[in-house]
């Protein structure tokens, strides 16, 4: 298996996630796009781990997965309180700071 196949798959997932973060209204959908980007990074870590035969990449992949779980918990709590305060889950309607 060529290494760059996995890297290209990771790059594609990352760019899809970046598009989602920029182009989505709902906070939940933005968090889903962030998950896509984190998974792209994990694919890269595991692919390099298999390429270099070093187990460190797998350890970092596990760290990324655990931190992503923590991030989703806090992120959804923030989306929830934004919804409670402004009655909308859409982040493009949050313009209280607009002058």
């Amino acid at each position, binding site marked *: *298996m*060529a*290494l*760059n196949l*996995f*890297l290209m*798959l990771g*790059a*594609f*997932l990352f*760019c*899809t996630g*970046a*598009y*989602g973060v*920029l*182009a*989505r*209204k*709902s906070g*939940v*959908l933005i*968090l*889903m796009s962030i*998950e*896509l980007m984190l*998974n792209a990074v*994990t*694919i890269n870590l*595991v*692919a390099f*781990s*298999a*390429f270099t*035969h070093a*187990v*460190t990449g*797998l*350890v970092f*992949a*596990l*760290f990324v*997965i*655990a*931190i*992503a*779980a*923590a*991030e*989703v*918990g*806090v992120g*959804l*709590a923030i*989306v*929830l*309180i934004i*919804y409670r305060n402004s009655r909308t*889950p859409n982040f*493009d309607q949050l313009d209280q700071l607009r002058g």
Partner: protein
Amino acid sequence: MIAQHVVFWILAVGMAIAAIKVVTTNNVVHAALYLVAVLAGVAAQFLLLVAEFVAWVQVLIYIGTVVVLFLFGIMLTRAPMRGDENQSNSQRIGSAVVALLLLGLLGVLIVKAFPSGQEIVLDESLLAYSETGALATTFLRDYLIPFEVLGVLLTAALIGAVTIARRD
């Protein structure tokens, strides 16, 4: 080797389609379910790379926990579930241009830096490196302190999420 390539391409095409659906569909629940397809594809790619422990952690944490959290988030924010409301904002075209430029840049860099000759050799020595016992030894010996810090981080995130979302 041929069988691995076939499996890789089937998974990669399915993941790409599902990932695009995640960021384009107007139905929020469908987006979460397409996300399950992408995450399961990632787990299958891990199995292809002989990282079975990471693959099952991916299944347990992501598909088992994160997606359920997303579904709870969708229900608690009363997101429109019928899919008749446009979920993309007005900067869609600019975002697509940015994402395509980024993909082109990363693609050129990856092809230049890692040409096709660099292969992941799936042989006995890779099996020895990626077996769960070796991973556990590294994880709990060389990375013990980061592991403990991760436990503290998860506790902090748990308490933080409860504190933020609490109603009073």
